[in-house]
C-alpha cells in the first residue's frame, strides 16, 4: 500500500500544507480585527445582558441580583416618562423628518438649475459635528435675544419660550434634530427619484394625467420601497436621541428625559448604577431589534 500511493501522498501533503499555511496566514491577517470585534462588539453584547441581572460596585466582583434592576427601573417614575418622551420625540420627528425630505427631494429633482447647490446645502448640516447644530440652535432659541423670537416679533407673532417651556421643549428638540439630519434622507430620495424611468411620466402624460396625478400615481408608488426603508431607519435613529436633550434641556428635565438620557443618568450621574443602566439598555435593544428585524425582512425580500 505504501508503494502504491507513494506519489500521491506527497502531492496531497504539499497541497494540505499549502492550505494550512494559507489559513494560518489568513487568521494572522484577521487577528487584530477579530480581537477588536470580540472585545468591543461581541463581548459587550453578552456582558450587557449579564450585567442587567447583576450589580457592580467596582470594589468587589459583580454579584447577581436577579431581576432587581428591572424592578428598580419599573418603579422609577421617570421610566414611563422617558419612554413616553422618546415616543413623542420619534412621533414628531417622523412628521417632520419623513415629509420634509420627501418634499425637498421632489423639489430639487424638478429644478433645472442650481441642483449642485441644493444638494450641497441640504447635506451641509449633516457634515457638521452634532454639537455645533445643537449649540447654534441654543442661541437661536434664546427667549431674550435669540434669533427665532426676533423673527416672531418682527412678523407680529407671539414669542415662544422654546426649550424652556414644557409645552414647546420637545418640538424645539425635534426641530434642531431634523435640521441636522434631514440631508441624508433627502439625498437618498433624490437618488431614487433619478432612477424612475422617464417613460413612465411620458406615458402618464400621453394618457392625459395632470402633474398632480403623475406625482400620485407614478412618483409616489416608485418611491414606496425607499420610503419604507427610510421610515424604519428614522424610527431606529430617533429612538436613540441623546445629544439634543442632553445639551439643550439637561438630563434632569422630566419634560425631555428620553430613554438614552435616562440610561446616561443611571450610569453616570444620579445613581451611578450600571445594573439599572444595563437593564434599560436591554429594553431599548429589544424594542430597536424589532424594528431592525422588520428592516432586514423588508430589504431581504427586495433582493
Amino acid at each position, binding site marked *: 500500500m505504501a508503494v502504491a500511493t507513494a506519489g500521491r501522498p506527497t502531492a496531497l501533503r504539499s497541497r494540505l500544507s499549502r492550505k494550512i499555511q*494559507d489559513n494560518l496566514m*489568513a*487568521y494572522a*491577517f*484577521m487577528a*487584530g*480585527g*477579530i480581537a*477588536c*470585534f470580540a*472585545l468591543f*462588539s*461581541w463581548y*459587550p*453584547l453578552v456582558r*450587557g445582558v449579564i*450585567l442587567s441581572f447583576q450589580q457592580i460596585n467596582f470594589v468587589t466582583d459583580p454579584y447577581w441580583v436577579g431581576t432587581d434592576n428591572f424592578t428598580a427601573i419599573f418603579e422609577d417614575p421617570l421610566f414611563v416618562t422617558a419612554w413616553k418622551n422618546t415616543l413623542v420625540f420619534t412621533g414628531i420627528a417622523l412628521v417632520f423628518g419623513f415629509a420634509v425630505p420627501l418634499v425637498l427631494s421632489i423639489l430639487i429633482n*424638478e*429644478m433645472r438649475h442650481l441642483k449642485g447647490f*441644493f444638494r*450641497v*446645502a441640504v*447635506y*451641509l448640516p449633516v457634515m*457638521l459635528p*452634532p454639537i*455645533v*447644530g445643537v*449649540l*447654534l440652535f441654543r442661541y*437661536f432659541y434664546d427667549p431674550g*435675544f435669540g434669533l427665532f423670537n426676533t423673527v416672531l416679533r418682527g412678523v407680529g407673532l407671539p414669542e415662544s419660550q422654546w426649550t424652556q417651556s414644557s409645552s414647546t421643549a420637545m418640538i424645539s428638540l425635534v426641530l434642531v434634530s431634523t*435640521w*441636522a*439630519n434631514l440631508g*441624508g434622507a433627502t*439625498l*437618498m430620495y433624490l*437618488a431614487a427619484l*433619478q432612477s424612475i424611468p422617464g417613460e413612465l411620466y411620458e406615458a402618464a402624460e400621453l394618457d392625459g394625467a395632470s*402633474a398632480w396625478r403623475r*406625482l400620485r400615481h407614478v412618483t409616489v408608488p416608485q418611491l414606496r420601497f425607499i420610503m419604507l*426603508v427610510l421610515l424604519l*431607519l428614522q424610527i*431606529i*435613529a*430617533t429612538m*436613540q436621541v*441623546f445629544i*439634543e436633550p442632553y*445639551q439643550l434641556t439637561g438630563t434632569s428635565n422630566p419634560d425631555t428625559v428620553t430613554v*438614552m438620557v435616562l440610561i*446616561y443618568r443611571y*450610569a453616570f450621574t444620579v445613581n451611578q448604577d*450600571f445594573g439599572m443602566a444595563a437593564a434599560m*439598555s*436591554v429594553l*431599548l435593544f429589544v424594542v430597536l431589534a424589532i424594528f*431592525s428585524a422588520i*428592516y432586514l425582512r423588508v430589504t431581504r425580500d427586495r433582493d
Partner: protein
Amino acid sequence: MTITTPIRPLPASPPPAPAPKRRRGVSSGDGLRTLFSETEIGRGKGRVLYWVVLTLVFLLFLTVFIFPLYWMFSSAVKTPEEYAQPDPTFFPQSFVPETYQLAWDRMRIAKFFGNTALYAFGGWLIQLVFQVAVAYALSKLRPIFGRVVLGAMLASLMLPATALLIPAYLTVTDVPIFGWNLLNTPWALWLPAVANAFNIYVLKRFFDQIPNDLLDSAALDGAGRFRVLWSIVLPLSRPVLGVVSIFSIVAIWKDFIWPLLVLQDPETQTLSVALSRLASTSQVPPTQLMAGLAIASVPMIVVFLIFQRSIIGGLAAGSMKG
C-alpha cells in the same frame, strides 16, 4: 442620530463616475425626464412659474441651511455687547476677528482641536490597517470559517451602538484578558472604531471584484501574500480606500456620546465634548463659543466641499440598492 449609515451593509460599488457637466438652460435636453416635461417648464406660464419656484426654493435653502452657518461665523466677530443686543444685527457692526484667536488660545480650542485630529487620523490609520487586512483575508485567502467570521461581524451591524454603550464602557475600563484601562486614552476611541463591519464589507466587496488571475500571476513571480496586497490590491483599490477613509475620519470627528463617556479628563477631550462642557459653564463669552463652533465645523465643511462627489455619490449608490 443620523440615518446616513444603513444598519445593513449595502452592496459596495465604486462611486458613480461624475456625470458629464450638463449644459445650463431650461431645455438642456439631457434626456432626464422628471415629473414635469421640458415643454411644461420651458414655455409660457410654466416658465414663469418655474422661475418663481426656483427663486423661492433657492431662498428657502439659503435661509434654512446656509444662513445658520453664516450666523455662526459672523457672530463670532461681533463684540459681546453687540452680540447680546435684543435685536440681533444681520451684518456685524463691530469687527473683532481676534475672538477666533482668543477662543483658540484662551478656551484652549487649539488643544481640543489637536486631540480630535489625533483621534481622527490615528483612528483612520488603525482602522484602515486592520480592516483592509480582514477584508483581504476574507476575500482572497478564503480561510475555513471565513463566512462565519464575516457573518458574526455583519451581525454587529444590527446592534444599535447605544444599546452597547454601557457594557462597552465597562469593557474599556478593564479590557478582558489584557487588563488594560483605556479610559482617557486614544485607544478607547481607536480600537472600538476598528469593529466597523460596514467598512470591512465595503472593502471585501471591492476586493472580490479584483480578478484572482492577476494575483495568481504575481504569486507565480514569487510575490508573497503581503506583497500582493501591498503592490497589487491596494493600488487598485484607491477609490474604495478613499471612500472608507472619508467616512472613518468624519465619523470620529462627529462622534459625541462615546467620547463623552470614555474621555472624561478635560485634557483628553474631543472638540465636540469640550464645546459641550464649555457651553454649560458660564465663564465662556458667547462670542468665543461661537468661534469655537465655527472652528469645529471648518474641517468638516472643507472635507465636504472637496470630496462632495464621493460623499454624495456613496450615499446615493448605497440607497439605490437598498
